[in-house]
């Protein structure tokens, strides 16, 4: 793998991790909203 | 000691709500309520061990949640329905530990144990004592500490007929010294005889 390969690999892994975290955050928020609506 | 419009929660369960409750000096009050009504929680609330979710209160001149509560705690005696003795230590070692922490004079330990009829069991480990004996030892501890506010949770539980006199003695001694007492119980007959008035905890409120 050349330099660019490593760079794309590094940026790709971090971007995927960031996307995963953002997704879990949105999912948890939606679940909490739903639960709150149920309780009201 | 008085509570005004006090509520308390444990987890998501509301234990008491909008409770007004006061105990004057020289007064002993009986507190009744069904299983799970929140009597024990109310005692811990009065003892400043559980902060109220709402409302205000004063105990022995200090606010229920103010920094003064750390000072008045040393003048509150609580005998819960679960013994708080260290099972590995003897009854005397348990009381000696308390005496050192509160600064009671040496010698008061044996006197206190003798007064509840446990002089002969002083060197027995708490683990090897019956529930009733452990209860007696806890009364000995409070006799030694002489708190200004005495909170008793089911005081007569597991006490034999002769030991019931201990409850009577400690309540009247506390009130005679200008203190107050709250007795949580199901034993209406015995508690009504010891207290000047009784209240009932129903649905999270005092009646």
């Amino acid at each position, binding site marked *: 793998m050349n330099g660019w390969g490593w760079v794309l690999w590094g940026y790709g892994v971090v971007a995927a991790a960031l996307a995963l975290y953002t997704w879990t955050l949105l999912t948890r928020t939606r679940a909490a909203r739903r639960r709150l609506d149920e309780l009201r | 000691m008085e509570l005004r419009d006090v509520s308390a929660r444990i987890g998501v369960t509301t234990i008491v709500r909008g409770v007004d409750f006061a105990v004057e000096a020289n007064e002993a009050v009986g507190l009744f309520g069904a299983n799970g009504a929140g009597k024990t929680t109310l005692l811990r609330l009065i003892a400043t061990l559980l902060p109220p979710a709402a409302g205000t209160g004063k105990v022995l001149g200090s606010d229920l949640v103010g920094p003064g509560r750390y000072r008045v*705690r040393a003048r509150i005696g609580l005998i*819960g329905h679960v*013994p*708080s003795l260290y099972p590995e230590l003897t009854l005397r070692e348990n009381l000696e530990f308390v005496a050192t*922490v*509160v600064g009671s004079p040496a010698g008061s330990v044996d006197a206190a144990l003798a007064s509840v009829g446990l002089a002969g069991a002083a060197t027995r480990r708490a683990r090897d004592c019956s529930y009733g004996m452990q209860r007696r030892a806890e009364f000995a501890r409070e006799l030694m500490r002489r708190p200004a506010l005495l909170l008793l949770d089911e005081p007569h539980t597991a006490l034999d007929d002769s030991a019931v006199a201990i409850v009577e003695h400690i309540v009247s001694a506390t009130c005679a010294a200008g203190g107050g007492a709250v007795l949580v119980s199901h034993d209406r007959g015995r508690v009504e005889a010891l207290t000047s008035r009784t209240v009932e905890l129903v649905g999270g409120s005092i009646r």
Partner: protein
Amino acid sequence: MSREAGGGFAQTLAIARRDLLREQRVGEVAWITIPFGAIAVLLVPLAVGTDLPTLTRIGPGLYWAVVLLFGVFIAVRKTAAETPAQRDLISLLGLDPVAGFFGRAAASSILLLGFELVVGAVAVALYNIDLARWPWMILVVPGAAIGLALLGTLAASITANLSTGPALVPFLVAPLAVPLLLAATQAMDSLRPGDSILPWVLLMVAADLALAIAGVLTARPLQETR
């Protein structure tokens, strides 16, 4: 009626005495934790090979890793745990929280010192560790015991009465014990003539002091029941 509470030092001693008496009656550290540490020292050569020169070289490091990873169980020993009723009582006795913290840490320090000495004797024998300039160990061994006891006491108080508490404490302690591990291992490494051991001893002292300060700062909120 109110009386003066016992002095802070008397309270510290009372708490330490209580903890040591409870341990003495049950023997949890003496009969479980210490033998467990000793067998860990015995197991490692079975995994990495029994070549004595290698063991002599890596022995001190293995010893300290075992002390920090297994010694932490002393902080979560059953005989130091308090039931909710016992915590209520302690709060109502007017115990100075700082005295309570130092009393519990003192008892744990003494037990940890015992752990270090027994496991250390096993390690010295099995790994043929050279104890040149051993007098420095008089500072390093208790220093590590005190630091780990302070850290373990803090972590045990933070997790008191949690169902996962005994599992959490080692995890919370391990990363923060890094200065103790480095100071102890590097001090032993520096036992060779010419290397200075003093910076590592000072680091140990600094770590212990930082933990003592943290304990004083957090003693009051930690004593609150609930």
